[in-house]
C-alpha cells in the first residue's frame, strides 16, 4: 500500500467567539493518497474551509487555535509544529489552493501574467531547462501555463487585468498559478461554485486532465454532489465539525450509510423521477458554539432513537470496502427500514406530517 501523501489525525480547530468557543473542526481524521481526488462534502458552516485552512496553517490565531493532539502530516512531515519558513515553502510549493471566488482571488492591480510569473519565480519551478532563471524565463513559463489551462492567445492575455476576464477565465488563471509550482496536493475550495454550470463542467474537466498529467492529488471541498460524482474517487461527508461518513464515490451514491448523506442525496433533483418538491433535511446546521450532545445530527434525523444520546464512533460497515459512518444504524440496520426517512419539504419550509409516503 502506498503511504499517504497527506494524513490528518484528530484535527481540532476551535475559535474564540463572543458566544463562547466555536468548535469549527472537531476531531477529524482522513488521508489523501498520491494522485487521488478526495471530496470533502458538507453544508455551509460545517467546517470544510476551516479544515483546508488548518492544513495550511493559514487561520488567524487568535481567534482560531489548533488544539494539542491535532496532527497534519505531509509525507510523514508534521506541519502543525513546522516553522513558518518551512510552511511558506510548503504553501504553493507542495500544497497549492484555489478558491471559490475567482473574482476576488486575483489582485486587481496586476496583470494576470505578472501574477502567474510571480508565483513561478517565488518557487523557482522552472520546468524548462536547467539554470534558467529570471523574469524572462518566468514569463515564458507563465505563458506556457496560461496556454495549458486553456486561455486563448496567452501571449496577448498575459497583459490583461483580472477585470478584463470572465469568471471562468479567471479560475483558469488561478489554476495556472496553483499548478505552475507543480504541487503534490491541490486544495480546491468550492472551485466551481461561483461559475455557470457549463463553465463549471469545463473547469472540472481541465482540473481532471491536468491532475492526470501532473499526478497531483486533489482535496476538493464542495457542497455540490454533482461535482463530487463527476470527479472524486473518495468522499468524506462532513457535518457539524466531524466526518460523518467516508466511502468511495460508488458506494456513497449507491448506498449512503449516514442519514445525513441520505438526506443530501435525496435533496438532489433527479431527472428520472417527477416530484413536486424535493426532500429536505429539516432544521438548520447547529451553531458551532453549541453542538447537540450525543449524535450531532440527532435533532434533524428521522431515525433518531434512544441510543443516539451516546456519541457514535465512525463505524466500519460491511457494505463496501473502506466505508464508515458515524451512526448507530450501521450496528442496527433493521431500524432504517422501520424509520420514516426524509419527506418532501412543505412550501412554508416546515416538514410535512411524516408517515404518508
Amino acid at each position: 500500500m502506498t503511504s499517504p501523501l497527506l494524513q490528518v489525525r484528530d484535527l481540532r480547530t476551535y475559535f474564540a467567539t463572543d458566544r463562547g468557543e466555536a468548535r469549527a473542526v472537531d476531531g477529524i481524521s482522513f488521508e489523501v493518497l498520491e494522485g487521488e481526488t478526495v471530496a470533502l462534502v458538507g453544508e455551509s458552516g460545517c467546517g470544510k474551509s476551516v479544515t483546508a485552512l488548518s492544513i495550511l496553517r493559514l487561520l488567524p490565531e487568535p481567534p482560531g487555535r489548533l488544539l494539542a493532539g491535532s496532527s497534519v502530516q505531509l509525507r510523514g512531515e508534521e506541519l502543525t509544529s513546522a516553522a513558518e519558513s518551512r510552511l511558506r515553502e510548503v504553501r504553493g510549493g507542495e500544497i497549492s489552493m484555489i478558491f471559490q471566488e475567482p473574482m476576488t482571488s486575483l489582485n486587481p492591480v496586476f496583470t494576470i501574467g505578472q501574477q502567474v510569473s510571480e508565483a513561478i519565480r517565488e518557487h523557482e519551478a522552472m520546468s524548462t531547462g536547467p539554470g534558467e532563471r529570471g523574469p524572462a524565463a518566468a514569463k515564458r513559463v507563465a505563458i506556457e501555463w496560461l496556454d495549458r489551462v486553456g486561455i486563448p492567445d496567452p501571449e496577448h492575455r498575459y497583459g490583461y487585468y483580472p477585470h478584463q476576464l470572465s469568471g471562468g477565465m479567471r479560475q483558469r488563471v488561478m489554476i495556472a498559478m496553483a499548478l505552475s509550482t507543480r504541487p503534490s496536493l491541490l486544495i480546491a475550495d468550492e472551485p466551481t461554485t461561483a461559475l455557470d454550470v457549463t463553465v463549471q463542467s469545463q473547469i472540472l474537466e481541465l482540473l481532471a486532465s491536468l491532475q492526470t498529467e501532473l499526478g497531483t492529488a486533489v482535496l476538493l471541498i464542495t457542497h455540490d454532489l454533482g461535482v463530487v460524482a463527476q470527479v472524486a474517487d473518495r468522499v468524506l461527508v462532513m457535518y457539524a465539525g466531524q466526518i460523518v461518513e467516508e466511502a468511495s464515490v460508488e458506494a456513497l451514491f449507491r448506498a449512503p450509510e449516514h442519514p445525513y448523506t441520505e438526506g443530501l442525496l435525496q435533496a438532489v433533483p433527479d431527472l428520472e423521477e417527477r416530484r413536486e418538491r424535493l426532500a429536505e433535511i429539516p432544521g438548520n446546521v447547529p451553531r458551532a458554539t453549541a453542538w447537540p450532545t450525543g449524535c450531532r445530527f440527532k435533532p434533524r434525523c428521522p431515525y433518531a432513537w434512544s441510543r443516539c444520546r451516546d456519541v457514535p464512533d465512525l463505524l466500519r460497515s460491511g457494505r463496501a470496502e473502506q466505508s464508515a459512518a458515524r451512526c448507530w444504524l450501521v450496528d442496527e440496520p433493521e431500524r432504517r427500514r422501520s424509520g420514516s426517512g426524509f419527506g418532501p419539504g412543505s412550501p412554508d419550509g416546515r416538514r410535512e406530517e411524516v408517515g404518508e409516503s
Partner: protein
Amino acid sequence: MLSRARRERGRETWRRFSRHRQAILGLALIVLLTGTALLAPALAPYDPDAQTDIVATRYQAPSVSHPMGTDRFGRDIFSRVLYGARISLSIGFLAILIAITLGTAIGAIAGFFGGRLDTVLMRGVDLVLSFPRLVLLVVLVALFEPSIALVTLVLGLTGWMGVSRIVRGQVLTVREMEFVTAARVLGFGRTRILARHVLPNVLTPVIVAATLGIGNTILAEAALSFLGLGVQPPTASWGNMVASGRDAMLDAWWITTFPGLAIVFTVMAFNLVGDGLRDALDPRRVS
C-alpha cells in the same frame, strides 16, 4: 513593461479627468507655476534680492518696468514672486513626500498587522492630531534655528496623520480580500504581501490625499514664513513677502497682493487637480 491594458486604463482615467474642466484649469496652473519656478532665473527681469538706490526705487506701483511694483527695499516683486514659487513649491512637494511616506508606512503597518500594534500606532495618531497643527509647527520651529530644511521636515512630520488613517482604513478592507489569502497560499511572506500586493491597491486615495495635501502644506509654509518662523529674509517666499508688505498695505497694496494671489492660485490649483483625480480614479463615479 507598459502593457496595452495598462495604457487603456490610463487613457480611461485621463478621459474622465479631462472632462473635469476645473481640474484641467488646475493642472494648467500647476504646469505654468512649475514651469516658471524652474525657469525663474531666465524669466525674472531682476535679481530678486538686489537692492540698488533704495530711496529712488522703493514702493513703486506696478508699471511696465516692474509689472508687480517694488517693495520697500526697491526689489522687483515679480522677480521675487517667481523665485518664491521655487521655495514654496519645493517645500510643498518635499514636505508632502515625507508626510505621505510616513503616513502610508504607519497606516499600512497598523492596518495590516492589527492587534496591539494597531492600537498603539492609532492612539499615537490621535495624540498628534489633538494638537492644533499651527501650534505644533510654531513650537517645533521655535525650538531650532529656522531654515528651509527645518520647515520642510516639520511640515512633513505634522502632516502624515490624515494619510495614515486613510491608508489604514483601506488596508483593513484590502487585507480581507481573497487574493491576499491566495498570496499566502502561494507561500509569500507577510511583509512582501503588504508591500507588493496590498499597498498598490490603496494608492489611489493616497495620490488624491497627496495632491490635496500640497495645497495645505504650501499654505502652512506661508503662514509660518508670515510669522517669521519659516523661510528667512532675504530669501523670497510668498509667506514672508506678504509679511513684509503688511505695514504698507494701505499705501502699497501690491507688495502683499501679488504674493497673496500666488498663494491663492497655487492652493486652488492643487485642490482642483485633487478633486479631479479623485473623481477620475474612482471607478464607482463613472458617469
